[in-house]
C-alpha cells in the first residue's frame, strides 16, 4: 500500500514488518493463483492423459502422456474434423472484428470531436446500449434476420457490428480520442488534411493501442459467443467451435474425457496465445473507460 518503511527504531520486530508484509502478500497470491489456474492446468494436462488416469489422479502432469485424446478429439465424433470448426469460427470472428473496429473508430471520432446536433442525447443512447440486456432484442432480431433470409448464414453474427452497435467499444475509443491534444489534429488540418484524412493518417495511428484493445476484446468475446450461433446456425458444417464443443459433450461425455479436454484446450488456444501476447492492451483498454471517465 502506501508506504512500507517503518518509522519506529525502538521496536526491533517492526524492522521486519515490510518483509513479513511481502511474504504474506506473496503467500496469499500464490495460493489463490494456484487454485484459480489449476482447472486450466488440469484441462491442458488432461488432454494428454488416458481416460483412466484422468479419473484416478488429480495431478495435472500426465504420467503416461498420450496423444490419443488430441487425435480423437481433433477427429471429433462428427463427420467434420475440428479444423472445419476452427475455420468456421474464424470466418465469423475475423469479419466481425474488422467491421467492429472500423465502425467503432468512425463513430467514436464523430462523438469525440464534432459538434453534432443532439450529441448529448445520442451519447446517452450509446451508453444505454451498453446496459440494455441483449435478450430483449433477441427474438425480434431473429425474426428480422429470418425475413432477410439470413438464417443459417454468418451474416446475423457480424453485420450488426458494422453499425457500431457495441457501445462499450465506441465509448472506449472516445475516451482515448478525448485524451489526445486537439492541437495535433489542428496541425494536420493546417497541413491540408480533411477530417477523414485527420482520422486515418493522424488519429487512428496514434490511438492504435485502443484499436488493438477493441480488436482483442471483440476477438475474445466472439470466440466465446455461444447463444448467437446457437440460434442462427443449424447446419453442422457451419458450426463454430463453441457449438461443436457443446455437440461433442452431448455425444461423448460419458466416456472420453480426454477427447473433450483436448478439444477444449484447442478451442481456447487462440484466445490464450493472443492474451499472453497482448495482455498490456487488455488492461489499458478495460481501464480507460472506468478510470478516465
Amino acid at each position, binding site marked *: 500500500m502506501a508506504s512500507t518503511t517503518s518509522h519506529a527504531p525502538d521496536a526491533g520486530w517492526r524492522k521486519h514488518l515490510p518483509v513479513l508484509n511481502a511474504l504474506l502478500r506473496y503467500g496469499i497470491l500464490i495460493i489463490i493463483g494456484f487454485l484459480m489456474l489449476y482447472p486450466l492446468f488440469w484441462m491442458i494436462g488432461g488432454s494428454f492423459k488416458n481416460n483412466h488416469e484422468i479419473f484416478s489422479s488429480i495431478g495435472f502432469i500426465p504420467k503416461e502422456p498420450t496423444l490419443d485424446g488430441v487425435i480423437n478429439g481433433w477427429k471429433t465424433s462428427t463427420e467434420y474434423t475440428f479444423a472445419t470448426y476452427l475455420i468456421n469460427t474464424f470466418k465469423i470472428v475475423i469479419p466481425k472484428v474488422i467491421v467492429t473496429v472500423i465502425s467503432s473508430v468512425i463513430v467514436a471520432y464523430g462523438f469525440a470531436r464534432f459538434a453534432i446536433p443532439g450529441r448529448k442525447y445520442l451519447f446517452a443512447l450509446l451508453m444505454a446500449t451498453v446496459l440494455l440486456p441483449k435478450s430483449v432484442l433477441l427474438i425480434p432480431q431473429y425474426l428480422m434476420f429470418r425475413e432477410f433470409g439470413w438464417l443459417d448464414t454468418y451474416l446475423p453474427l457480424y453485420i450488426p457490428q458494422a453499425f457500431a452497435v457495441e457501445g462499450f467499444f465506441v465509448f472506449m475509443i472516445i475516451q482515448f480520442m478525448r485524451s489526445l*491534444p486537439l*492541437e*495535433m489534429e*489542428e*496541425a*494536420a*488540418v*493546417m*497541413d*491540408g*488534411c480533411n477530417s477523414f*484524412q485527420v482520422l486515418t493518417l*493522424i488519429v487512428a*495511428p*496514434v490511438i*492504435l493501442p485502443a484499436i488493438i484493445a477493441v480488436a482483442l476484446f471483440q476477438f475474445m468475446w466472439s470466440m466465446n459467443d455461444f447463444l448467437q450461433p446457437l440460434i442462427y446456425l443449424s447446419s453442422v458444417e457451419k458450426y463454430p467451435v463453441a457449438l461443436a464443443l457443446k455437440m461433442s459433450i452431448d455425444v461423448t461425455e460419458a466416456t472420453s474425457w480426454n477427447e473433450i479436454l483436448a478439444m477444449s484446450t484447442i478451442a481456447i488456444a487462440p484466445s490464450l496465445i493472443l492474451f499472453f501476447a497482448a495482455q498490456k492492451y487488455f488492461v489499458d483498454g478495460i481501464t480507460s473507460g472506468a478510470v478516465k471517465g
Partner: protein
Amino acid sequence: MTNSVKLTDVKKSFNGHEVIKGVSLEVKKGELVVFVGPSGCGKSTLLRLIAGLDTPTSGEIHISNKDVTYAHPSKRGVAMVFQSYALYPHMTVADNIAFALKIQGLPRAEVDAKVAEVAEILQLTPLLKRRPKALSGGQRQRVAIGRAIVRQPDVFLFDEPLSNLDASLRGQMRVEIARLHAKLGATSVYVTHDQVEAMTLADKIVVLNAGHIEQVGSPMELYRRPANLFVARFIGSPNMNILSVKVAGAAATTVTLETPQGLLEIPRTGVVATNGDTVSLGLRPENLHVAADGEASHLKGHVVLIERLGGETFAYVALKDFGNDPVIIKLSGEADLHNHQEVGLRVDLDRAHLFDAQGLALGQPLGAAPDVGAGHV
C-alpha cells in the same frame, strides 16, 4: 499593396458570448506582429481566425489581398506553430516536416529536397530519422517551426510557441526565432502573454484586452506613449505606478497636479482638463529616484520592502498621505537603502504619464512626434 494580413471588423462569438468584439488590423509584408494581452483577451482566438481553425461570426479576413474569411486553413498560405508543438508522434522528424507536402501530392524527390533544405536551416539534419518522443523540448520546437517553414507560407502564425519551455531555453529559442525571422523575412503573427517576448521580437505589438485592441504600435511607442491605463500597466515590468491626483491647472505645455503632498508640475502638451478633475499619474519604476541628502524631492515616504535581485534593486515606498499601495522604484543593485527608512523621491517629470478618468492618455509628452501608431483602430 503591401498588406499581408488584413482584418476588417472581425467579430467572433462562442455560444452567444462575444470573445472578439470587432477587430480591424493590418499586418505589412515582412513584419513580425505580436498579439499580447492577459489570458482570455482573445489573442489566441484571433490567431485561430487568421489560421482558419475557426471562422469569424462577421467581418472579413484578407491574406495577400485574397478574401480567405471562409477558406480552408491549408488554402490560405499560412502555417502555424502550436503551443504544444503538436508533432505527429507516430512519424519521424522527416515525415513530420514532409507531411503537408505529401498531402499536397508533391513528387517524392521534391519533398525530400525541401525537407533536407529546411532541416539544414534548423540544424535538424542529424535528427531526421528520430521520432518526436526522442527529442528535447527545444528540438521539438524546431521541428514544429520546420514543419511551418517547409510550406513556404505567406504568413507564419505562432501560438505561444515558447510557453512550454523552461526559462533558459525560452531565452535561447527567442533569439533563434528572431534570427530566423531576420533571415527569412517572412510575415509573422505571434501570440504570447509574455511581454518580454513581445518587446524583444515584435516589429509591431497589438495589445488586446477583452476582445478588442487597446493599442497598436512599435514596442517603444507602447512603452513611451501608452494610449491608456491598460497598456500602461500591461507593458513594462515591474508595472507602472499609478497615483490618483487632481488637476490644479493646465497650460499649453504644463499641467499642474494637486497631490496629497502638494503641487507637481508636469511638462505635457495638449492636455484638456478641468481643474479639480481626478486623473491618474503614471510613473515607471525607473523614472523614480531616491533623492540624496539635502537634495530637493518631489514626493516623500518610507521604505516598506526591498527586493534585491543582484543587478538591480526594487524598493517599495509608501508615500506619505497617499493611502494607496506603495510605489515601486527601480534602483541599482548596490543601492544603499534599508527598511523603514524615510526617503525623498525625485521624479523624471518629463517621463510622467497622465490618464483621464476613463483611463485614456491625457495630452502628450513634450517633443513627442505626432501620434503614429497609437490610438484605436
